[in-house]
């Protein structure tokens, strides 16, 4: 199997004074499925377009395997890309669309037809080869785009929000299919999305981006369990992590609604975080903090209780049979094993001694 590793070294992209991507360094291994995750405008698509060769990096170096590809045109990089709006050629049939990369490569007609048929089988498009893209549904068009990507067995797949134009149900289905296809082919894949569920379900490793900078790289579980900064903590999870600004001095939390034993070595302006599912409701005087119930939402498998504590809203995921009412006073108890501390000024995670 032909696989590729991709290495970005301090890659940046500016448009005039606008910095789209700032000094990104990232190494992707052979056969890895890596997801670039971030809100729109964070530079994730630009990063992918630079790897594809559609945009030139303003600084830094991009390597595929050990070759610097900065000056190589996209067609010479041996990669395939699936675009958000599919990028199918409207005047060509499905077969011609899938076969186009082979035609450009000079593969003869018979061999082309054989490979197109094989690729079409793989993405379940067998009966639609003579149709034009305009006669296909969104899901089918997506399959054509996938077929065109896999037909020439490239070393690297690039996928730019490939599922975001599909309706919710189809998206879940295609997501599973995509994962299966990638594992099956074993091709190194870089996938761009703003959808954290896609990132969590598909990725071997997730690279979270914001404001043109890389925030954290790690396995889905890593970035969920140990977010490197306030941004990652607040971006992942639904609802995201509760984040409460506090001040710690002399090992004690100062003037706050919060009763909490400050961990050793943590001082100054701190943001304390905990995920809604790690918190518990309690009697008003038995928790780490107390407040008035703002809303309760039954989610089916659980109930989401939002509590107003001081100026902050704190979300707590509780048992679905929890009976609390809006306006009621409740206490909230932290799970001490799952507390996160961030420096409020820099936003970065603060290491601490949890043994205390």
């Amino acid at each position, binding site marked *: 199997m032909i696989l590729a590793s991709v290495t970005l070294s301090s890659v940046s992209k500016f448009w005039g004074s606008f910095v789209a991507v700032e000094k990104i360094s990232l190494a992707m291994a052979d056969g890895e499925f890596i997801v670039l995750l971030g809100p729109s405008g964070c530079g994730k698509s630009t990063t992918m377009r630079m790897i*594809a*060769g*559609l945009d030139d990096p303003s600084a830094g170096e991009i390597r595929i395997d050990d070759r610097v590809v900065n000056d190589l*045109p*996209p*067609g*010479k990089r041996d*990669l*395939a*890309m699936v*675009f958000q*709006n599919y*990028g*199918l*050629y*409207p*005047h060509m049939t499905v077969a011609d669309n899938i076969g*186009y*990369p082979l035609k*450009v*490569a000079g593969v003869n007609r018979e061999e082309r037809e054989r490979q197109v048929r094989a690729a079409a089988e793989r993405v379940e498009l067998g009966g639609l080869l003579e149709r034009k893209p305009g006669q296909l549904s969104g899901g089918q068009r997506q399959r054509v785009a996938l077929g*065109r990507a896999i037909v020439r067995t490239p070393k690297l797949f690039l996928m730019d929000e490939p599922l975001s134009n599909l309706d919710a149900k189809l998206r879940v289905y295609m997501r599973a299919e995509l994962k299966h296809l990638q594992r099956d082919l074993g091709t190194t894949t870089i996938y761009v999305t703003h959808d954290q569920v896609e990132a969590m379900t598909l990725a071997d490793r997730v690279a979270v981006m914001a404001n043109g900078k890389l925030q954290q790289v790690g396995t889905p579980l890593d970035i969920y369990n140990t977010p490197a900064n306030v941004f990652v903590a607040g971006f992942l999870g639904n609802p995201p992590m509760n984040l409460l600004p506090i001040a710690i001095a002399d090992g004690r939390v100062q003037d706050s609604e919060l009763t909490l034993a400050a961990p050793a070595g943590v001082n100054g302006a701190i943001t304390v975080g905990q995920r809604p599912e790690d918190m518990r409701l309690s009697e008003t005087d038995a928790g780490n903090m107390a407040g008035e119930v703002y809303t309760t939402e039954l989610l089916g498998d659980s109930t989401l209780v939002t509590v107003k504590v001081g100026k902050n809203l704190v979300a707590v995921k509780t048992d679905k049979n929890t009976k609390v009412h809006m306006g009621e006073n409740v206490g909230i108890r932290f799970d001490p094993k799952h507390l996160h501390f961030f420096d409020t000024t820099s936003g970065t995670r603060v290491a601490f001694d949890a043994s205390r």
Partner: protein
Amino acid sequence: MNTRSHRSRQAALLALNVVLALIILVPFFWMVSVSLKPAAEPFSIPARLWPENPTFDNYITAFRPEFRTYFMNSVIVSLSTVIITVSLALLAAYAFTRTHVRLLIIAMTLVIVTQMFPASAIIIPIYKMMKGANLLNTYTSLILAYVTVTLPVAIWMLRGFMANLPLTLEEAAAIDGAGPFRTFFEIIVPLCRPGIVATAVFVLIVTWQEFLFALSFTSTKEMRTLPVGVNDFIGQYGIRYGELMASSVMISMPVVAVFFFLQRQFVAGLTAGAVKG
């Protein structure tokens, strides 16, 4: 809006359409009518809308050997102009559409400036150039002049069309390994077909009916085009209206036919750049 005012609005629009159609169609009808009248009838009093004794005599007279020469000249000059203009305009429009080079953007604006000069103002310098190049009384002189006149508009028409093609298609082609020329011929040009049709029809109409250049640059009967050729029926002592109109009908036919077969593509091509799809 209530139904009554809506309906009166509809009626007003319909009336306006009918008036416009009449303004356009009456002269055309009159041309056909006169072409079918025997020599004595065009000025008979009372005037008749439709000839009393319709005849094709005028057509038989008008379809003389000279007419056939003029017709062939017109076809050669017009088709050559269409092919050259559309080919050059496609290349230029693509370059202008996808460039971010400031100099080219300025050049694109300058292209429009060439349209500010009326034909009568540029005909003398062009005539002198043609004379200097020894091209007077050749097809080349007419084709060159027509390409000059039609190319700027053609570039702008096609540019409007190309600017609306999604960039993703070219990027997909680049990923698939196609170079710029391949992308241009296999992706861009086929997708521009409605725009190409519209542009070609426009160029055809302009050159088919062009009179001033054709009159100035050709001096022998062998090189004349149709619009100049019909002048044969305008003599020093009289105008032979029957034959003149019969020739005019025959001249109009090819353009009418082209329009008839391509009108859907033509309209699609003209409106394509206007609205974001």
